[in-house]
């Protein structure tokens, strides 16, 4: 029976059935299945297949994004049980992502978050127009390995520098790797402001993120 349930969970992710994903996660818990198994044997199998198919050009962004939303829905249900269990959740890495102060554009960030989720990262998207102070608070609270700062405009891009300075002032700069991205952002800018990583698009962002979490 557990195999059947895990298959349904993976299929829900493949089909982008966001409403059903949370229900299936709860049904699994109610049936006595371990939260970590529900995740690894059910939902993660689904998102790994989506990621694989995306890499082969068989599935595309809408499938990837809806798969990430399914994971989010399932994790919302599983989180208390995961935290209570010994193994917890095995992830590729942890990240907090947000659009910087003054910036209300988020589609690029949303796509990056989806692709990171598909690649096994635990991602917390804190939203738009996030001040340096709020980023510092989130880093202090959630202790992510990565902080992703998105900016679409040359004017709001300056807040990426301010956020890095705020991390330094709070004594947290050494606790997190900072990645920057957005249309006007370049490797030169990333180097100038002391960011740890830069990616030109969402696909590159996953590669850079993997490298940063494994390099320590």
């Amino acid at each position: 029976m557990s195999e059947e349930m895990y298959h349904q969970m993976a299929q829900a992710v493949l089909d982008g059935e966001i409403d059903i994903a949370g229900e299936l996660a709860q049904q699994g818990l109610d049936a006595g299945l371990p939260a970590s198994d529900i995740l690894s044997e059910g939902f993660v199998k689904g998102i790994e297949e989506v990621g694989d198919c995306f890499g082969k050009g068989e599935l595309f962004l809408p499938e990837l994004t809806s798969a990430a939303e399914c994971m989010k829905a399932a994790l919302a249900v599983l989180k208390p049980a995961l935290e209570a269990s010994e193994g917890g959740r095995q992830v590729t890495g942890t990240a907090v992502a947000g659009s910087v102060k003054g910036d209300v554009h988020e589609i690029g960030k949303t796509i990056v978050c989806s692709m990171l989720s598909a690649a096994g990262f635990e991602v917390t998207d804190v939203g738009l127009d996030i001040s340096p102070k709020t980023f510092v608070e989130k880093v202090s609270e959630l202790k992510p390995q990565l902080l992703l700062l998105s900016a679409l405009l040359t004017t709001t891009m300056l807040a990426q520098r301010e956020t890095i300075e705020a991390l330094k002032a709070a004594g947290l700069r050494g606790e997190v790797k900072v990645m920057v991205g957005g249309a006007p952002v370049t490797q030169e800018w990333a180097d100038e402001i002391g960011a740890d990583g830069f990616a030109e698009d969402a696909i590159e962002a996953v590669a850079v993120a993997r490298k940063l979490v494994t390099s320590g």
Partner: protein
Amino acid sequence: MITAGRQIMWDEEACSRGHSAALEILERVGVEVRHGTGIAMFEKAGARIENTRVRLPRELIEEALVTAPRAFSLRARDGDGALDLDVRDGPVYFGTGSDCLYVLDPVTGERRRALLADVEAGAALTERLPNIDFVMSVWLPQDVPQEVVDLVQLAAMLTYTRKPIVVSSPRGGDAMREQVELAEVCGGAADSLACLTMTAPSLILDEVCVEKTLSCAELKVPMVLETGNSLGSTGPASPQTCAAVGHAEVMATLVLHQLANPGAPFIYGTGMSQLDMATTVDLFFGPESWLAGHLQLNLAQSLSLPTFDYAGYSDAKSHDEQCVAEIMSSSIVGLSSGGTLLHDVGYLEGGLLSSYEALIMGDEFAGFARAGMQELSSDDAAFDIDEVDQVGPGGSYLPRQSTRKGYRGWWRSTLLDRSNASQWRASGSPTLGDRLHTRTTDLLATAPEPVVGSDTASQLATLVEQARERMSS
């Protein structure tokens, strides 16, 4: 109104339904307004407010459409009005795009960050391109203080071209006033600038959008309100629904604009792109976004509003076959759609990149499109039957006076090869790319020539510096 050859995707009845759909979006979903004064103005006018969500009753849009002017001028600074633009639904004008971060260096071919020298050379080039009717700052220079980059860009354009200018400052606040002040130094005024303002996708009037709307209305600077939704990501995947969302954004901003100053000049900007679902790149050149943008344009035209649309652009990263195909086809489609101000001529890589070559090629193809889509009369005088009678069946029109007069007005290409095969081989079999490179080199051989005197240039620099000092104090 020029309608010959105009491409109508939605007729009057379909536009009426599309307009109603947009009004329903505004009544049911509303717009997010991230500005206290803006919200207060909407509330006072009768909108329903829930935190920052503003839902507009359709009467507000109907009132704004009554007061919004349908015709006004965008003036040049040439002194005699020859370069002025008659901004209304009818005439079609071509112009550049703005704020590209990168340039393909005309000498090395390298893709590099743009500099102030490129902004100046670009403005000087567009002054000489016959089919460019209005100018934006093609590039966003990285070697100037970024807090006053908009003023530096405008000063450069005022220095090197007399053509009407569309500005695109990222600032609200005093930015518009400062820009009008610069234009006045060069004999211009509020109506020699149009100001590009954008909503944020989707259905968001952010702080800068509201501030620019209010200051343009107050100063009576023609405001272009451009939407920027991307099909399937920030906007609906359905072209019809995406067009309705964009139309709703324009209508909401028009309401605020006309509340601030009834009768202030307003230009409807269509803006549509689409996400490539494999590469994650936002595309300018896609048939689905053309279609959705076209529907939105027809909605604007059904209300007789002057419009801001697109022509002469490409998603290519170099001057390759894709570049030529996209610039040529978007020139023809742009003109046939009948938008008033067609901008982004010379845009590459979806607006991240531009080049001198692309500007020159865009100008060339704009001329080609214009020549092939002129409105021609069909009254009695248009048909010279006497001429046909005199030449007779099988006769030659070549030596006739009518031909001598007529052919001189034909479009002549500076880039396309019209020789026969032997002549072409004898000249080294040049490609379009070869001829484009030669033409670009010729046009850039002389240093950019200012159109204002050194005193004026100096005054512009002083005003920019004063603004910078105010900002840093």
